[in-house]
């Protein structure tokens, strides 16, 4: 039997024997966007969650284990938020395929938890029709019971259950109310639904009429409109105050990410140094010690150092999204983004990309339009990420004397830095324009943005999100960078001379540097910079560590020794070219890996890498010839 892995021969027969001791039932959680589905999923599963991608698509698959009071467990699958099951978007396709058992990688669920917003029952009940039509045992969960109560709405649960022919539970996932009924359903004999009637599923007006009739039978009294949401919107969407608040929020996010970057990086560096010293002390001098210290520790360190920033960013996004402000921010940003052919929802990922393109690209998930999403992914790495910062800082400090430009406010160095940020931004905008008017031209899919009511974000939901993100970040990005660093370390150590590591110029790494020298000569770079360019393919800031190793000193961006050494190898024109090269090139294996993952194949990362490399080469060539 396909799609039915746990039992044999059940086929289409109704569930006859229900083995009470079956260890893991699989139950799907589904609901429209903004129904609190994920909050409920988090409530039920807590820390026992796994995030993966459905193979071949960009949709995330959240699975988790819910522990029942009697000690048994149930496997829950959190399906994407959908308004219907008619498979038009990727999300709906996934939801449809999982629920009908058409995905080989996911066991067909035995039952469904249908999560609906009780404060907007009329519309949300529309999804009940296709779900009940599946014939799977279904618990209809009316979420946000606290809101409903507070705003004076009510309904007759028994009448609704009779109408739908399925059990109904009124819960508040945020407050943990009513979860007992959910547990009861999961633990008990799950009956098949027997709705009194179902509408023609393809006909939306008929579905809505059915939903209206059902909620009418259940004496549903909709709650009064959320007062606070109206009041807050009057401020947040005010023609003058709205954009001002928007700017303050954006700057606060930006500023915090930057201000947390240095101390957290220093702290992690110090931690690595201490542990590195300890290893150096404990282990005898050997290739293994050298591998651990120079390869693993440096490799792991360069990744972990970004974790606090990534977490900080997702903390902000989490708060903004869960509170409902993100939708308003997208609304305000939409017109500006529309000028380059993108939409409001692209704004936050692009802002995030100033910290790091990896979480930024992960956060493009909020963009439902696939072409807009890919365009955002493609331009995100042009934003000046924090990994470029140390490289810029080193080269600017080495080549630009620090002089006041506009009094005490703006020095030449700051101006250079700001200029590089502007350069990346301009390139991103130009690229977006080109992409959106050619390969990624959106059809006429209308831009739709639901404005959820404002809510307090819960600590649990944000905490779990941060945990998720750190796991994904460390696993995906960490493995790649670690591998490359170790590989490079190896290449710098062979061929050995009399049992000693070779001079860097004679090593395999040096040979590679010399091989590419003719290609980069026109940009004003020599083979040493060449090695740096190659190592920085793994991660941009690796060039500093690499140059440090090559010059035989500590790779610290503030080291005057390294700055002085750079003067020997780079002309001012070459330095400018190097800056432009770093502004445009996609030197980040983590980004390539995450783009591959998010776009579900090699096509887009390959295109992006080629495009950015060409842009970097041409840009650097022009730069090298502008300044002599």
């Amino acid at each position, binding site marked *: 039997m396909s799609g039915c892995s746990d039992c044999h021969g059940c086929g289409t027969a109704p569930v006859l024997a229900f083995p009470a001791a079956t260890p893991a039932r699989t139950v799907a959680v589904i609901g429209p966007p903004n129904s609190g589905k994920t909050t409920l999923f988090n409530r039920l599963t807590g820390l026992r969650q796994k995030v993966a991608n459905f193979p071949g698509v960009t949709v995330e698959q959240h699975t988790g284990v819910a522990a029942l009071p009697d000690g048994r467990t149930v496997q829950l699958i959190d399906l994407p938020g959908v308004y219907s099951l008619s498979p038009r978007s990727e999300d709906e396709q996934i939801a449809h395929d999982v629920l009908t058992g058409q995905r080989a990688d996911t066991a067909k669920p035995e039952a469904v938890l249908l999560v609906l917003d009780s*404060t907007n029952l*009329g519309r949300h009940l529309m999804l009940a029709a296709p779900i009940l039509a599946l014939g799977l045992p279904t618990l209809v969960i009316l979420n946000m019971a606290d809101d409903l109560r507070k705003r004076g709405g009510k309904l007759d649960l028994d009448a609704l259950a009779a109408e739908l022919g399925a059990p109904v539970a009124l819960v508040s996932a945020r407050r943990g109310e009513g979860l007992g009924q959910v547990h009861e359903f999961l633990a008990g004999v799950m009956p098949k639904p027997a709705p009194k009637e179902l509408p023609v599923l393809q006909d939306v*007006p008929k579905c809505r009429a059915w939903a209206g009739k059902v909620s009418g039978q259940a004496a549903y009294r909709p709650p009064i409109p959320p007062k606070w949401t109206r009041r807050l919107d009057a401020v947040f969407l005010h023609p003058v105050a709205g954009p001002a608040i928007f700017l303050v929020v954006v700057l606060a996010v930006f500023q915090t990410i930057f201000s947390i970057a240095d101390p957290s990086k220093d702290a992690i560096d110090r931690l690595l140094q201490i542990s590195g010293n300890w290893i150096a002390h404990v282990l005898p001098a050997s290739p293994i010690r050298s591998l651990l210290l120079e390869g693993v520790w440096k490799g792991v360190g360069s990744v972990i150092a970004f974790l606090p920033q990534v977490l900080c960013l997702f903390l902000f996004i989490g708060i903004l999204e869960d509170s409902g402000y993100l939708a308003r921010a997208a609304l305000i940003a*939409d*017109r500006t983004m529309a000028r380059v052919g993108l939409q409001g929802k692209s704004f936050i990922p692009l802002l995030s990309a100033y910290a790091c393109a990896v979480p930024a690209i992960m956060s493009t998930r909020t963009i439902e339009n696939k072409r807009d999403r890919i365009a955002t992914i493609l331009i995100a790495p042009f934003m000046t990420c924090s990994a470029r910062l140390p490289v810029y800082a080193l080269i600017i400090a080495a080549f630009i004397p620090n002089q006041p430009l506009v009094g005490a406010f703006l020095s030449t160095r700051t101006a250079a830095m700001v200029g590089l940020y502007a350069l990346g931004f301009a390139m991103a905008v130009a690229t977006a324009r080109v992409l959106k008017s050619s390969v990624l031209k959106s059809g*006429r899919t209308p831009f739709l*943005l639901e404005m959820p009511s404002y809510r307090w974000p819960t600590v649990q939901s944000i905490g779990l999100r941060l945990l998720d993100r750190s796991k994904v970040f460390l696993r995906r990005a960490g493995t790649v960078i670690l591998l490359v660093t170790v590989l490079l370390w190896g290449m710098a150590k062979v061929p050995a001379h009399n049992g000693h590591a070779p001079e860097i110029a004679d090593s395999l790494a040096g040979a590679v540097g010399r091989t590419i020298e003719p290609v980069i000569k026109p940009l004003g770079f020599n083979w040493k910079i060449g090695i740096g360019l190659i190592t920085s393919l793994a991660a941009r800031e690796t060039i500093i560590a690499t140059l440090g190793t090559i010059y035989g000193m500590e790779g610290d961006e503030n080291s005057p020794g390294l700055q002085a050494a750079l003067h020997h190898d780079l002309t001012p024109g070459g330095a400018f070219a190097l800056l432009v090269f770093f502004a445009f090139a996609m030197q980040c294996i983590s980004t390539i890996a995450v783009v591959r993952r998010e776009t579900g194949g090699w096509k887009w990362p390959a295109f992006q890498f080629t495009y950015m490399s060409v842009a970097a080469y041409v840009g650097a060539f022009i730069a090298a010839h502008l300044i002599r």
Partner: protein
Amino acid sequence: MAKRPRGKTGKNRGSALDKNFGLADTETKMQLSGNSAALESFPASLVDLRRGDAAILDGIDLPRDDARRLMELGFLPGARVTAGMSAPGGDPRVFQVDGSEIALRRETARRLRVRPEAGPARDRDPRRG
């Protein structure tokens, strides 16, 4: 919506509104309702509604799939749609429909035909209150 139905010709737009929807911000697009000659013609699409205005959705002039998506969000023919807040400049604008608030860009809102509240759906017949 705790808002009572309003005059359909838009004569006293901007007053007697739900207090949560104050005066419409600086918009000049409602030329057609500014003089008595235009009183006859009711705004033809959602774009013509100002903040606080409500109308009944008549039809959606969009490809089938797009129209379906809008209908799933509550934009069903016959539904009462109220224009709400907007981004600066009036685009996109939030519309209240079927218990939800959905933001639409002007280019989309233009495709949603509306008729005045109350009275049978006789498309754009001259009609006075």
